[in-house]
């Protein structure tokens, strides 16, 4: 069937900010969909609050609304744009939930908007546990036995029937938020009450436990004519009980016979038909009892998902793009397979390699968080690796994580144990408890002689996977034996052994450790007598047809399929797996660079290992190498392709860390020179430069050990801000007030930073912080944007709210900032982007940090000013001049743009939400409006901080803030809010003539503040931390607020901005404006 002609304008809902369980995979999907629909001539209206997405680039939609993804806002956009259809299946769970809510409110009916892809009925059938159960039973599919409950009373009755352990799944939430498995009544009651609160409809499903069963997923697509195909099967390495987002997963399924696979396929097809997903992709999850093969259906996601993004990258089949085309009426057989060109999309990809996805966690950012993995997702990113065997792919995947592992390394090596017995007990415990490190403990368990059978008992991981890991460990043992022998490297590591090692995925680094040599010696040996790295194609069809898309992975085989040509090539190094501090913003920059350089006639080569991203879409660059971002893997590609230039400054710290190694290998690093990057990173050199330019910086010093650190701190005086160099996201950055803390810090920092020195700065309390992004070509220097932070200095810039243009700085100060920035850029001979962070105190400008590379704020600034900075940067790096590109003047918008950060605290119950110098946010949102207050309000709404317009505000601030809070409280009272406060704060307010209610603290008598929060009597919390070590009761208050979805403000400046926002919103309702209209002004 051809495309529908009755539709002209289609609305797509994006997934909003990056959060745990909803990351850039939805930008990848959404971007594909936008492109696909516009290609077909439809007008696209897009809403997404996340400025760091490619999809919100103005050229990807006809009207791009960077506005909060809420039903209210979507209704406003619909009223304004009057689209014919709404495509709800591309914006993750957020998009789906908002679409359903909009439909429920009658908005779609009112404005005659048709939901395409999956309608409300289908979505509800898949999402509502009860309806789902009925639907599956109707078609005879087996499910875990389950009971829906709406109260604790019902829950207790149900558990008697279902028994323990028991699974708790709240309905209508994200990524299993609030779910879990209970092994006893205490846990059961906790999880049920949390689940009831989290569920949008206050409903929880209790389910027979299938803990330890094998877990599988199928990615299914269906078209209007009811053609159904399976794109990919995925087998989870980790068994049921661990969220699939937190599991190591493998494609295709490894341990199913064809008969079992076909039974699963049939079930998935029946299910998608029964649910009624008309067109598009669906993710279907199954569990299989390993003892008897009983297969049960777990769930269906009637939309594109993290797994569908993975399946797309794993097979080369672009699920989201095809889903968009199916939604407008095409059938699968009418759409060509881009990779083979001659064959249609109505087929099932077959692959001839093994794909392993490994999740990336950041528990180190959240001390006190429960690092045990369960049914609620906790990972922040993932790496995908492709190999010809599971062993090769697994080792590649593990070294892709960038957690200082070179493959399946030992983690117990450095630990000390009293006895082998203790060691065994320790490892046993680590195996029993699923965690981010369990995969490494499996290796260690085998190393200390535990059997596959024992490990299988403890982990419930399938024997096939464990035996493969055993092969890796056995081979490692053999290598270590040989390594211990006498003789030079060449005689010990023979060509045969070297080849076997590489085929099993061992990295040069691993081998260098075994053989006690430098990594480069292994590379050297490889180049003389080792196997050559070969590249094979991801082609959807296992070589049955010719593939036209150069999408490669490395392996060690006979035939190399790479086709290096002699075009002028630029290689762009991506950022690797998402983690806190390095996420979608950097991928955005890499993608822009690729687009811009392609346009300028270069051949672009992308290297990355993150399956969620747009950068790893096969049509983003001329060539894609899906490889770990390590020195070895990157240099192998360089050797093969011999690019004219390599860009390291756009992918964040990961590629930047490779700069020196690449430079040493003779690679032409384009853009700002590695020497300049080094000046900016090296405190000593940096200080010399600032002195030369007569710029001020907080008193500071560098230290390589505790003694040196102590002396620096003594000289400049506490508090000091300490951090390791060459890290991103403020990893291990801390404000230190005394010597003891300093000592502990030095220990930690040396682990994170390795040989790099530790930086110590005088911490400027209560200073205003400013971020500047600028662009230069060596001759012309242009400010991209100056952003004033709302939170004071000391809170990581990635966690601060920022305003562009600055709202409180004098014109004189802003000019000073401009001049200083340009002076530094000139001195550093910046070619490309540069980011500077300043602090302002007592009208003095301090330069905190300079980074001659793309910063996290580049996408935000680009969208705020309407200039694609990363694109221009890439062109400049490749030799173009800003003059010729038409960007020579800073653009200062007349409207305000606010960037707000989004935090994963709701994933880590009990963890304090207090902000500090270590970055904790996973993503960001943007609010734009003519009025700063409204822009701020939008940013808060978009970030899920639902600032109330009336109700009760709980105020409790530290002594230092008691003066500042008076004015804020007065305004809140004027706006009609009731105030309650803790005794101390109430007393301070009373002195200023403000009477408030007084409430008990957490450990005082009840009802206390926690009861009020639970009972919904509080609508906003203003609570500034009392000191550097927050009191336990404060942590409880803030953590509870987050769990109940209450907006909680922890800084005075944040409170001021929020009150302003509430005030303007009370005067006039928000309205929506597309980005394109702002940029036209």
């Amino acid at each position, binding site marked *: 069937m051809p495309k529908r002609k009755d539709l002209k304008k289609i609305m797509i809902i994006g997934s909003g900010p990056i959060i745990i369980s909803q990351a850039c995979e939805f930008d990848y999907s959404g971007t594909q969909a936008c492109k696909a629909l516009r290609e077909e001539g439809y007008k696209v209206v897009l809403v997404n609050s996340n400025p760091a997405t490619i999809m919100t680039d103005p050229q990807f939609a006809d009207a791009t609304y960077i506005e909060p993804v809420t039903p209210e806002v979507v209704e406003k956009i619909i009223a304004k744009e009057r689209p014919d259809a709404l495509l709800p299946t591309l914006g993750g769970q957020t998009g789906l939930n908002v679409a359903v809510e909009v439909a429920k409110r009658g908005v779609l009916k009112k404005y005659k908007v048709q939901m395409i892809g999956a309608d409300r009925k289908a979505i509800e059938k898949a999402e509502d546990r009860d309806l789902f159960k009925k639907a599956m039973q109707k078609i005879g599919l087996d499910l875990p036995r389950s009971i829906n409950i709406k109260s604790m009373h019902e829950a207790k009755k149900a558990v008697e029937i279902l028994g323990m352990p028991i699974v708790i799944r709240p309905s209508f939430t994200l990524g299993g938020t609030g779910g879990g498995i209970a092994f006893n009544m205490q846990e059961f009651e906790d999880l049920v009450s949390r689940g009831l609160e989290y569920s949008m409809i206050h409903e929880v499903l209790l389910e027979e436990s299938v803990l330890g069963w094998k877990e599988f997923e199928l990615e299914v697509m269906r078209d209007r004519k009811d053609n159904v195909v399976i794109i990919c099967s995925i087998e989870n390495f980790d068994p049921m009980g661990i969220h699939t987002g937190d599991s190591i997963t493998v494609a295709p399924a490894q*341990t199913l016979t064809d008969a079992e696979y076909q039974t699963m396929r049939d079930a998935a097809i029946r299910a998608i038909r029964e649910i009624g997903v008309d067109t598009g992709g669906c993710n279907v999850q199954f569990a299989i009892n390993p003892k008897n093969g009983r297969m049960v259906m777990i769930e269906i996601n009637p939309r594109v998902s993290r797994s569908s993004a993975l399946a797309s990258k794993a097979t080369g089949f672009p699920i989201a793009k095809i889903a968009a085309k199916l939604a407008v009426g095409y059938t699968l057989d009418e759409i060509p397979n881009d990779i083979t060109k001659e064959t249609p999309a*109505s087929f099932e990809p077959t692959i001839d390699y*093994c794909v392993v996805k490994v999740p990336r966690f950041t528990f180190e950012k959240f001390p006190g968080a429960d690092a045990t993995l369960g049914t609620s997702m906790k990972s922040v990113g993932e790496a995908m690796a492709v190999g010809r065997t599971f062993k090769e792919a697994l080792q590649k995947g593990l070294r892709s994580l960038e957690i200082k592992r070179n493959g399946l390394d030992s983690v117990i090596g450095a630990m000390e144990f009293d006895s082998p017995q203790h060691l065994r007990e320790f490892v046993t415990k680590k195996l029993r408890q699923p965690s981010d490190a369990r995969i490494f403990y499996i290796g260690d368990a085998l190393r200390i002689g535990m059997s596959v059978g024992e490990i299988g008992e403890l982990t419930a991981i399938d024997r096939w996977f464990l035996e493969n890991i055993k092969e890796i460990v056995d081979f490692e043992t053999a290598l270590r034996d040989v390594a211990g022998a006498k003789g030079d490297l060449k005689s010990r590591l023979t060509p045969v052994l070297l080849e076997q090692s590489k085929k099993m995925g061992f990295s040069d680094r691993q081998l260098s450790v075994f053989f006690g040599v430098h990594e480069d010696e292994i590379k050297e040996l490889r180049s003389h007598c080792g196997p050559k790295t070969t590249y094979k194609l991801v082609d959807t069809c296992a070589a049955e047809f010719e593939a036209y898309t150069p999408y490669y992975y490395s392996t060690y085989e006979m035939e190399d399929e790479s086709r290096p040509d002699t075009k002028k090539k630029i290689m762009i190094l991506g950022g690797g797996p998402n983690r806190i501090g390095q996420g979608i913003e950097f991928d955005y920059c890499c993608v822009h660079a690729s687009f811009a350089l392609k346009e300028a006639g270069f051949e672009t080569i992308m290297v990355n290992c993150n399956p969620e991203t747009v950068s790893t879409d096969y049509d983003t660059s001329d060539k894609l190498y899906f490889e770990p971002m390590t020195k070895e893997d990157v240099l192998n590609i360089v050797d093969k392709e011999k690019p004219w230039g390599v860009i390291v400054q756009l992918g964040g710290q990961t590629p930047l860390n490779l700069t020196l190694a690449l430079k040493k290998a003779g690679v032409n690093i384009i853009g700002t020179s590695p020497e300049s990057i080094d000046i900016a990173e090296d405190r000593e050199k940096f200080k010399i430069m600032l002195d030369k330019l007569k710029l001020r910086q907080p008193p500071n010093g560098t230290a390589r050990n505790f003694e040196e650190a102590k002396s620096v701190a003594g000289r400049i005086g506490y508090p000091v801000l300490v951090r390791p160099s060459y890290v991103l996201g403020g990893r291990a950055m801390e404000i230190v007030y005394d010597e003891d803390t300093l000592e502990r810090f030095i220990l930690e920092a040396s682990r994170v930073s390795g040989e790099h020195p530790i930086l110590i700065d005088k911490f400027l309390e209560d200073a205003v912080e400013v971020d500047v992004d600028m662009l230069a070509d060596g001759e012309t220097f242009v400010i991209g944007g100056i952003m004033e932070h709302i939170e004071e200095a000391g809170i990581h810039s990635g966690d601060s709210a920022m305003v562009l243009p600055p709202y409180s700085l004098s014109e004189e100060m802003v000019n000073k900032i401009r001049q200083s920035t340009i002076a530094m850029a000139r001195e550093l001979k910046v070619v490309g982007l540069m980011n500077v962070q300043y602090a302002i105190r007592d009208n003095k400008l301090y330069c905190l940090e300079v980074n001659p590379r793309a910063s996290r704020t580049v996408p935000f600034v680009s969208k705020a000013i309407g200039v694609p900075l990363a694109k221009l940067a890439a062109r400049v790096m490749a030799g173009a001049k800003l003059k010729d590109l038409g960007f020579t003047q800073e653009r200062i918008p007349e409207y305000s743009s606010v960037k707000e950060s989004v935090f994963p605290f709701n994933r880590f119950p009990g963890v304090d939400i207090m902000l500090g110098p270590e970055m904790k946010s996973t993503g960001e949102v943007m609010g734009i409006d003519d009025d700063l207050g409204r822009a701020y309000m939008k940013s808060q709404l978009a970030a899920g901080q639902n600032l109330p317009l009336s109700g009760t505000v709980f105020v409790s601030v530290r002594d230092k803030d008691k003066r500042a809070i008076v004015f804020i409280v007065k305004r809140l009272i004027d706006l009609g809010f009731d105030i309650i406060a803790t005794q101390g704060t109430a007393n301070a307010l009373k002195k200023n003539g403000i009477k408030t209610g007084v409430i008990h603290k957490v450990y005082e008598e009840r009802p206390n503040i926690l009861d009020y929060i639970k009972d919904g009597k509080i609508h906003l919390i203003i609570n500034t931390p009392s000191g550097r070590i927050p009191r336990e009761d404060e942590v409880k208050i803030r953590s509870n607020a987050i769990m109940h979805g209450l907006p909680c403000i922890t800084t005075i400046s944040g409170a001021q901005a929020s009150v302003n926002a509430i005030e303007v919103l009370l005067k006039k309702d928000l309205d929506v404006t597309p980005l394109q209209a702002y940029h036209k002004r």
Partner: protein
Amino acid sequence: MKKAILLLEDGFVLEAKSFGAEGETLGEVVFNTSMTGYQEILTDPSYKGQIVTMTYPLIGNYGTNSDDVESAKPWADGFIVKEKSKIFSSWRGSVSLEDYLAKHNIVAAEGLDTRALTRRIRSSGAMRGILSTRDFDVVSLKAKVMASPVMVGRDLVRDVTCKQAYDWPGAGGRKEFFVVAFDYGIKYNSLRLLDRAGCKVRVVPAATKAQEVLALKPDGVFLSNGPGDPAVLDYTIQEIRKLIGAVPLFGICLGHQLLGHALGGKTYKLKFGHHGGNHPVMDLETRKVEITSQNHGFCVDMESIKDKNVALTHVNLYDKTTEGLRHKQLPLFCVQYHPEAGPGPHDAGYLFGRFTEMMRKFRKGRRK
């Protein structure tokens, strides 16, 4: 680890490690793109005369079992994989792939670049090859390959067909129809699905005469899949021709090609054939696409029967080749692919229903 060498007739040589049986084997080297179902593939008699290479690199993961067999024993003349699993993991598994192959004397090899081999076959076409664990002399191997028979003109049905007729035991239940199935290398799953569709089945040798079949008074006749070149099977083509119109006919794969010949048409050899479980086939009547199991090296030339009152019913969306046809008046239809799956998707299972429907109609017509 014993060495093995694979040599193709164009001189392409790959060194590998031997597993399964040792020895030397000759055959047409083909690749199969199914990611699961190696046991069904090995036991499919259509692979007689062929050395099968699996494009999916990790094979043997779930071992072998007593259920997933398509005939009494493996028939492939050699088996090639990237990596055979050292162990197997499946609640149904009983014997490792390695032991299974050794027991059935199938020469197999692992550890070679199967993707390179596949690409070679894709560009040069299916070729004769030799897999040896004894002789590593390239010149000698080449000579042996060149002396081996080519696929075109080869009657392999003789080797795989049953010696005597037998009744398929079936799973019980009422049987509405009685079907005679010609065994050209029949797969158990065809028999299982006929049984499930309500047919009592008698399996007869390939050389059975039409007269003998008609004497059994069947409601319909099933023409099975099988190996080799259909053009040389004149002995059965003649008999099939006599059955056309006299009894409803349903052919699969070789059975389909034989019907093509019986209708007066021709077949031709495909460059490297269709072997896998993911080919899209369109049913031209419903315009719906089914994902199919495929295993054939020859194809019916529709041009050769365009004046025989025959309609094209199914077409392969990959290369637009003929996948199914029916007679416009007489009760017969056939498909090139494998609706019985085993291995592969079940999308085309409806064809067994179409067959029983045809038999029902035919029976009604006769009563009138």
